[in-house]
């Protein structure tokens, strides 16, 4: 089963490198990894997707916690959450195929962000599964170039992943 983990990291030199090198060294299989800024300056947030059948999720969490600059790791898989991936894809699109492609894009709520005589660039954000389905559908048209950001996740409701940590220790500091 796939697990989605969210980790908060202090922006210190090498913290991303340490995390990634840890995954390599311990043989953890990471399917997707994204890092970005958060609501707090100096704190980054990493979202990881791991295959729980081949990699021990408990070990990933515990080993990440051993890194001095990792503040919090949370497995949000079982929590109600929103996961999002962003796709940019350049499809072969001669004039005869354009409208068909545009229809598909429309159904998925994707945006056409660039059109040239032979090709079209489409942008779509959604759950990773939604993106998979869309990509499958447009594949027959001929994909020339494609990139996905990897998965971001946030739990639903008012509570936050940094909740207890931020109210107690961090604010005091």
């Amino acid at each position, binding site marked *: 089963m796939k697990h989605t983990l969210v980790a908060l990291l202090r922006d210190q030199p*090498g913290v991303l490198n340490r995390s990634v090198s840890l995954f390599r*060294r311990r043989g953890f299989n990471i399917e997707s990894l994204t890092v970005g800024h958060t609501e707090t300056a100096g704190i980054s947030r990493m979202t990881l997707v791991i295959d729980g059948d081949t990699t021990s999720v*408990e070990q990933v969490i515990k080993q990440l*916690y051993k*890194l001095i600059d990792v*503040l919090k790791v949370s497995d949000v898989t079982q929590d109600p959450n929103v996961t999002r991936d962003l796709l940019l894809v350049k499809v072969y699109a001669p004039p005869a195929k354009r409208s068909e492609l545009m229809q598909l894009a429309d159904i998925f709520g994707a945006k056409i962000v660039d059109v040239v005589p032979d090709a079209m660039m489409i942008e779509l954000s959604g759950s990773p599964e939604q993106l998979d389905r869309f990509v499958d559908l447009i594949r027959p048209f001929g994909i020339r170039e494609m990139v996905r950001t990897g998965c971001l996740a946030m739990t639903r409701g008012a509570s936050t992943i940094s909740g207890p*940590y931020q109210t107690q*220790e961090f604010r005091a*500091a």
Partner: protein
Amino acid sequence: MKTLTGAQMMCEALIAEGVDVMFGYPGGAIMPFYHALPEYPQLRHILVRHEQAAGHAAEGYARTSGKVGVCVATSGPGATNLVTAIADAMMDSVPIVAITGQVVTSLIGKDGFQETDVTGITQPITKHNYLVTDVRDLPRVFKEAFHIARTGRPGPVLIDIAKDTQNARGVFEYPETIDLPGYKPNYDGNRRQIKEAANLLNQAKKPLIMAGHGILLGHASTELREFAEKTGIPVITTLLGISCIPEDHPLSLGMPGMHGWVHVNRAIQECDVLFTIGARFDDRVTGKLDSFARNAKIIHVDIDPAEVGKNVVTAVPIVGDAKRVLEHLTEIANPNDHSEWVNHIREVQATRSKRQRDPESGMFTPHHVYAEFTRIMQGEFRVCTDVGQHQMWAAQLIEYMKPHTHITSGGLGTMGFALPAAMGVQVACPNEEVWAIAGDGGFQMNLQELATVVQESLPLKICIINNGYLGMVRQWQELFHERRYSATPMWSPDFIKLADAYGIPGVRVERAEDVAEAIHQARATNGPFLIEFVVEREVNVYPMVAPGASISDMFEDPSEVEIEDVVAVK
């Protein structure tokens, strides 16, 4: 306001951390630090002959004193020479701080002369590391580094400091507090879990304690003993746990694992509750995992949450400090007596382990050396062993009576460890008898340190167990590689003449009858002394569990391997 150079700050920080000695070797990128050092006479610096030795000496110092060991090297080759010792400290959870010089900031990343990315290289083998390029960061970084090295599960921390940063000036204010929101080791252990462990142990018919390095690192020997005595539970000690309980204690059974005793491995297989504390179920201890402790519920106490549940399924996990958990556990556990169970194990010991203490007559083997050593020394010694057969025999056969008297490279198994580590031990315990015991192979990996021993007037006693082979590898070749002795026969120089060249007296011993005399002579010598024991060349360490086999399948004789492959103990 008065300002200091970065180099002076480094010295001030070391003093603030209670450091009084360090082991090191200078070079270009660390010269500002060495320039400042003479201004601080309270900081003793021991010049080694190879940076690896500085690392092991810092380890030996830390492994005995419980204080953080410090080693210093220059950038590039100096730093890379430290790598083995840092990895060794990481595997055995030894608190050391390694300080390296780095090329000037403007050259970093440009392949400057003697630049290596030492923070990159040591990332997986340090608990944490730092590259400092701003002098204002120095006090905080030193404070954090020592804190991280000595707290929680101890380990090595490296601080790499650019040369211009050592020369830059700034105001020195050593921080009193530490702000590491992501680092909060848990010491106390969950009360409910400890209660559950007590219940399990109270009900157990055949409980067993497996004690590891964590007892020594956590200074919990007394607590361990009190717990064992109150509950009547026998104790086995892993290679790195050796000396955490006096070996003549009625509840002390000895070492488990690949070269552990038959009765100890049998006890693991028969026990119904295995209480493991400060040990991490290394494969050399467990053998084939799925047959390890197969009748037991396992309680695992460790300060490192990541060790709990890593290798074995745990019935009761407890994350906490050995001392605190044991104190609490002793308080709530029922007094008990398990003499029937202990006697049962002792019976196995009487029938299955005797031969090893009593080698065949006519041969001069390390057994004689270690038996005489134990008899003469009466527990008043500290021993550093190297890696190989002599190490396993020293673990099996010497009797250790006091904590931190057996120092060895366990997790990494680093040949060349004994001599430099013993230097560190001797510096930590200047008035005690410190013995370095190495094989003919391992001794030659760091023998250059004889010069350091002399220059620093360290009264080390050095034993070489010379079997003319890389003995442990030869043993595996004999048993598992058709006796193909590929690259294991080893020529050595005349060790006595060699010692003489360093001004160290020594004797060569070739007969069992002469062992005692040589040991007495070494002890009577005021200063370092070297004994070369020329022993039988092809003797094997038994009993043994073949790599990957179950610890139920120990053999005690090569013929047993050839005829039946392995003799099932149970």
